[in-house]
C-alpha cells in the first residue's frame, strides 16, 4: 500500500467498501457520483448526501488487459470492467473467474483487493 498521504473521499470509500459498507454520493435530484464531491457532476447541486451502495451490480463492459502500465506489470493479464450499480457505475478488476468465463451482464459484488505488483489497494469485483 502507498506510503503517501491519503486521498480523502477516495480512500474513505475504499475503507467503507472493505468494511462491507460501500456508499455513493447522491444529490437532491437523485444523481449518483463517487467521492470526493462538493457538487453534483450531473446537475451542479450542492445538496449532497451519502447513500449505501447496492451490494451487487452488472458488468456493463470489460476488457482483458495484456499490456499493462508498470504498476500492474505482474498483475497482467487482468480484467478491467465497468460495473453498473444503478445510481453509479464503478471501474475495477474482476477477480475469481477466468477471463474467458466473464460476460457482460454478469452480476458481481464489490470489494477491495491489492495489486500483485505493488500491493496497492484497488477496487475489485467478484462474481456472485
Amino acid at each position, binding site marked *: 500500500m502507498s506510503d503517501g498521504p491519503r*486521498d480523502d473521499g*477516495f480512500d474513505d470509500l475504499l475503507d467503507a467498501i472493505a468494511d462491507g459498507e460501500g456508499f455513493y454520493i447522491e444529490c437532491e435530484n437523485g444523481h449518483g*457520483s*463517487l467521492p470526493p464531491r462538493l457538487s453534483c*457532476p450531473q446537475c451542479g447541486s450542492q445538496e449532497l448526501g451519502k447513500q449505501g451502495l447496492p451490494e451487487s451490480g452488472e458488468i*456493463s*463492459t*470489460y*476488457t*482483458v*488487459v*495484456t*499490456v*499493462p*502500465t*508498470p*504498476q*500492474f*506489470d505482474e*498483475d497482467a493479464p*487482468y480484467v*478491467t*470492467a*465497468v460495473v453498473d450499480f444503478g445510481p*453509479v*457505475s*464503478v*471501474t*475495477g*478488476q474482476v477477480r475469481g473467474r477466468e*477471463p474467458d468465463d466473464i460476460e*457482460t451482464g454478469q452480476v458481481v459484488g464489490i470489494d477491495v483487493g491489492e*495489486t500483485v505488483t505493488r500491493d*496497492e*489497494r*484497488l*477496487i475489485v469485483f467478484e462474481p456472485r
Partner: protein
Amino acid sequence: MSDPRVAGVGLTHFGKHPEQTGRAMFAEAGLAALDDAGIDPDDVEALFYGNFMGELAEHQGHQAPLMAEAVGLDVPATRYESACASSGAAIRDAVLRLRNEEADVVLVGGSERMTNIGTAAATDALSIAADDLYEIRAGMTFPGAYALMARAYFEKYGGSKNDLAEIAVKNHEHALPNEYAQMQQAITTEDAIDAPIIADPLGLYDSCPITDGATAAVLVSEAYAAEHDLDTGVAITGTGQGGDKMALHDRDYFARTPATEDAADEAYDDAGIGPDAVDFLEVHDCFTIAEVLALEGLGLYEPGEAIGAAGRGETTREGDLPVNLSGGLKSKGHPVGATGVAQLISITKLFEGRHPRANDVDDSTTALAHNAGGTVASATVHVFEEVEQ
C-alpha cells in the same frame, strides 16, 4: 466575421526519434512553417502550443516559452493540454484570437517526445489522460479504455475484429506514400486480426504507435493575407469544442461520444454547413474503434453504421468520403500534443495539391479535422474550406 487562413505549415518526420528533444523538434517544425508562409517572423504575435506529457517524458513543464524561443520568436506563448486534443484546442483558441481581431498572425503547433522513455513508461504516461483515482488505480490503460468502448459498441450495434481490421488496413494503405508517416507499411486484415492482443478485443494493429514528432502552422487573418498577397487558399471556417465526464463509467454512453457530437454541431453551425457538405476528413483514430466513434459522432453515419464503412470501401481513398488520407494516427503516428495540428497540415496539403494523396480529393472544397482527448472527454472539430485567394 472573417475566416482565418492557413499561411504555412511545417512538421518533422513522425517516428522513433528518442534522441530528439521536444524543443529541437518544434524548432524544425516551426521554422519550416514560417518559411512555408513566407512572412516576416517579426509579424507573429503569439504562440499557441500543444503538449501532453512533457513533464513525464522530458521533465519539462512550462514548455510554451521554450518553444517560442526555439523558433526565434519573442512573443507571448501558452501551452494547451487537453490530452490528445491539445493542439486541436490550441488551433481553436488561435482561430478565435484571429477572428476577434486581437491578432493578425499567430503560430500554432505542438510537440511530443515519447519513445525516449520506453513503451512501459509511455503507456503509463498516456494512461494519465484518464481519472487517476477511479480508473488508473484499477489498471485502466489507454488501449484498455478504448477496448471497453469497443466491446460496448459490438454488443450494442454489432461488429467484429474483422471490421476493425479493415480500418487498420485502409489507414496503412493511405500512409504508404506519406514520407512523414511513422508506418509506411501495407498490412492485410489477417495481419491485423492475428496480431498480439493489447487489451481484448484490441490488438497491436488496432492501436496507433508511440511517436516522436512536432507540427506547426502559421495562421493569419484574412486581412493580413490580402494585404501581404499571401498564397493562402485554405480557410478555417468553423470551430467547435465539446466536453464530457472524465471517467468512462460516469458517462451516459460507452459506444457514443457526445463531446464529438457537440463539437461537430458547433463547428457545422459556425461554418454554416451540414455533414453532407464534408468531402474528406482527418479523424482521431488513436484506435480503430475511435475512427468508428468519430464518424458517427460527426453525424456522417448513424450510430452503428460506421463500423463497416472501411470494409465497404466508403472511407478509403477511392470511396465517397475518404477518411484519414494521411494514414491517420494509426499509421502516420500520434505524437500526442502535435496531432491536432498534424491534421490541419494534412488537410491543407491535400487542398493545395502538395500531399501524395491529393489526387484523391481533386474536386473537394470542404474538409473536417476531429481531434479527441482521453476517451473523448475533450474534442475539437474544425471545418476547412478551399477559398478564392
